[in-house]
Structures are given as C-alpha cells and as structure tokens.
C-alpha cells in the first residue's frame, strides 16, 4: 500500500515538474537575432596587436608557434635596420586552431591575443588561413600600456643600458671590490 502511494506520488511530482516547465517559457536565446555579449576574456579569433606608440609588438620569437599544440602558427623572422625584430610573414591556420590560448600565454610581448569574436566559419577551409594582414590590428588589445621594449634589456638609442623599466643603472663591478 505504501509502495503504491510512493508510485502515485512520484508520478504526480514528475508530471507536475514537466508541466511547470511549459509555463516557465523557453530559456533559449535566438542566436542570429540576439547575440549575447561574451566575456571580454573569452577566446576566439586571434589578433596581432601594436604598442602604445603604434609599432608592431610581435618580435617573431616563435614562442607562440612552439607553444601551439596543433601547430597552426607559422612565421618568418626578419630584422629592420634599427635592429628591431619583426615577422616577415605570419600565418595562422584557423582551420586547425583550437582556441586554447596557449600562444597568448607564451607571448613575451603581448602581441598575440585572443578576442571574443567567433563568427568566422567558412565552407572553404583554405579561406580559414589568415595572413599577417588579416591578423594585424591597430590597437593594443587587452594590455593598453605594455611596451616590450621598455622592459627588455636591449640597449637602443632611446633607452641606454639601465634605462628600462625596473632596471637598475649599471654598476661598475670594480667599485665593489674590497
């Protein structure tokens, strides 16, 4: 008898629960009509950002390419007359990219960054290959103040040895002698 009560009770609970959901209304968001604002740090389309003074951040160090678990990043390093490295060509195969963000973590210059823009599917897989022109943007992305060359210990015309951020002036080792 108790068992029968249990059966009836659980049936009623089940049917009541499903009925409630009819009046709750759908939780669906209609995608192309309504685009949910994505979190700023969600990972999709990759960009190459620039310094606060508008110069390419990428120094073609190959770290992103090495970190990439699916090997979708390739580039060719080059050097300009003032000794600054840059990528002669830079290619990301979005057909392979898994948007893991490891390249962004590996990048010492904050050049390569992932953005929330995800709507770049295509029927032709060759169109998914992005060249440097497609990736390069003219803003700083997530880090508006960072400039690699202000931190790097490489002396140049503007910043001599010891002139970088958080860098002590050079010490004459001979004066340290007892």
């Amino acid at each position: 008898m108790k068992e029968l009560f249990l059966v009836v009770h659980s049936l009623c609970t089940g049917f009541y629960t499903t009925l409630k959901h009819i009046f709750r209304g759908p939780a669906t968001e209609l995608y192309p009509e309504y685009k949910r604002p994505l979190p700023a740090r969600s990972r999709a389309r990759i960009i190459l950002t620039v310094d606060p003074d508008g110069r390419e951040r990428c120094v073609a160090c190959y770290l992103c390419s090495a970190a990439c678990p699916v090997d979708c990043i390739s580039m060719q390093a080059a050097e300009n007359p003032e000794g600054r490295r840059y990528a002669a060509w830079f290619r990301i195969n979005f057909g392979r990219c898994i948007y893991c963000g490891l390249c962004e973590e590996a990048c010492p210059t904050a050049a390569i960054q992932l953005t929330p823009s995800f709507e770049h599917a295509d029927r032709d897989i060759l169109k998914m290959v992005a060249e440097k022109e497609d990736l390069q943007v003219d803003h700083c992305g997530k880090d508006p103040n960072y400039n690699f060359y202000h931190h790097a210990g490489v002396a140049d015309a503007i910043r001599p040895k010891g002139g970088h951020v958080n860098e002590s002036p050079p010490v004459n080792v001979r004066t340290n002698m007892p």
Partner: protein
Amino acid sequence: MGLWLTGYAILMIKIAVILTGVLLLAAYLVLLERKLLGRFQARIGPNRTGIFGLLQPVSDGIKLLTKEDVIPQGAHRRIFLFAPAVVAATALLTFAVVPMGPDLHLGGRKIPMVVTDMNVGLLYVFAMASLSVYGVVLGGWASDSKYAMLGSIRGAAQMISYELALGLSIVPVVMLAGSLSLVDIVDAQAGRPFILVQPLAFVIFFLSAMAESKRIPFDLPEAEAELGSGYHTEYSGMRFGMFFLGEYVQMQVLGALTAVFFLGGWRGPLLPAPLWLLVKIVLVVTAMIWIRATLPRFRYDQLMGLGWKFLIPAALINIVITGFVMVGI
C-alpha cells in the same frame, strides 16, 4: 450500374479525404510533438522554416525524399523494402472503421461518415494492430544487423504481450455497447462517454495502446540509448520516413480509438462532429507527448511485469466486475 458507380465514387472520395487528413495530421503531429517537447524542456523547438516552424514538415519531407536510400549488403532485399510499407499501411488501414460523424443525408442518400461500418470493426482494429508487428519483425530481421534484430525481437514480444491487455481492456466496452462495430460503440455513448463508467478499462487501454505503438516509456524496440535505433537502425531516406510516418499515424489511431471507445467518439456540443474527433485525437496525443516528456524508458523485465502481472489481471477482474454489475442491473 449508375447506382454502383455513385457508391464507388462516394467511397473513393471518403478514402481520399481521410487519407489526406490523416497524413497531413501525421506531418503536423511531428511538429506538435517537437514544439511541445521543446517547451517541456524549456526550449523553443523548430521555428526557422516558416512562421512558428509551420513549414517544418515540408522541409523534413524533402530531406527524407532526397536522402540516399541505403540497403545493407547482407539484407534480405525484398523483405527489407517491404517492411516499412507494412507498418505504414496497417496504421492507415485502421482508419477505415473509425466513424467521423453522424450519417450525412445528401440528395436523399444516406452517407455514413465512415469508410466501412464493419460489424466486427473491433476485431479488424486488432487484426491491423497484430499485422503491424510484422513490419517491425520483418524490418529488423531483414536488416541483417544485430541491433535491428534485437529491437525487432523486443518489439514482437512487447507488442504480442500488450495486445492481450489491449483486447481484454476493451471487452467491458463491448459488453456495455453490445456490439463490435465502432459506429455502434460511439452510438452507445450518446448519454455519457464510457470513460466515466470504465475508468480502469481506460487506463489499461491507454497504457497498452501506448506500448502497442512503441512510444516512450515503452519504446524498448527502438531504445536509442541501447540499440542504436532498434528495428529501423539500418533504414534511411524515405523508407525510414515510412516507419516514422507509421508511428505517427499509429499515434492518431490510438487517439481515435481512445476517443471512440472511451471519450464518446465524434460526439460533443457545438462543434461539428469530425472536429470533435480531431480535438479528442489531439488531446490524447498531447497527453502522450506529456508522458514522453516526463517518464524514462522501462527496463525490459519491468515492461513484461507490468503487462502480464498487472494489466492483464486487472483487465480480467474488470470484465468480471462489469459482468456482475450488468447482470445485477
């Protein structure tokens, strides 16, 4: 000769109207089910083809028709091709005896609103239900696939078991109506629908009819979680569509039979008779969709236990009680 021709023409018109209606309704029941199921799960359901997804059945049809019709290499070709037709045809044929309304009088001619008023209509209905087992069994067997085979074995066992309960649950209705003809059964409910006098029979009939039409929670023959999709695993294209169509026509058959046996058939106030039947069919189908949205699938031994140990004894007791009450009165 002229009289014979007119009769023949009227018959053909009736068949055409019923076939069109049933097939159209089957197409839109798919949409209704998907929409309702969506709502039950806090989704929207199909809404891209036409307003509210009203063209969904059309696009589904086009898709099924243009898909490749694959026949497995080891399949028994002829039976494989034949099986889906059995399921769809038996379901459609059942509608031949369902009365759609009171007799129509047109130009001094009495036109019954039923394709054929058989005096053994009930037996005919059960014969068709039994034949539809062949579609399932042959389809599964001819596929030469383990999953399909398992599905059809389950289907055969389940449908044959529940046919007993189905038949026995209707006996009290036949006793009350005093006839096996579906038209007479509806006429006997002029005062009150039989659901009020025979609630137990209604529950047994409804449960075993759901098992008969292989709906969740009785969808053991399909059991997509265990068997791929059971007896129609190997079917594709429009042949799969035929199984699908058969299933949805069977839902309507179930709705129509529930209406005829327990809800007073086409009888009802205000609305015209065929519309009342339609309303009742849609009501029953909605209840089935609700059940589908709520209950999980039975385990196989539970399914057999429910059929043999509960429904059949209950139906037998119900017959005895009905008999005593009738003799007592």
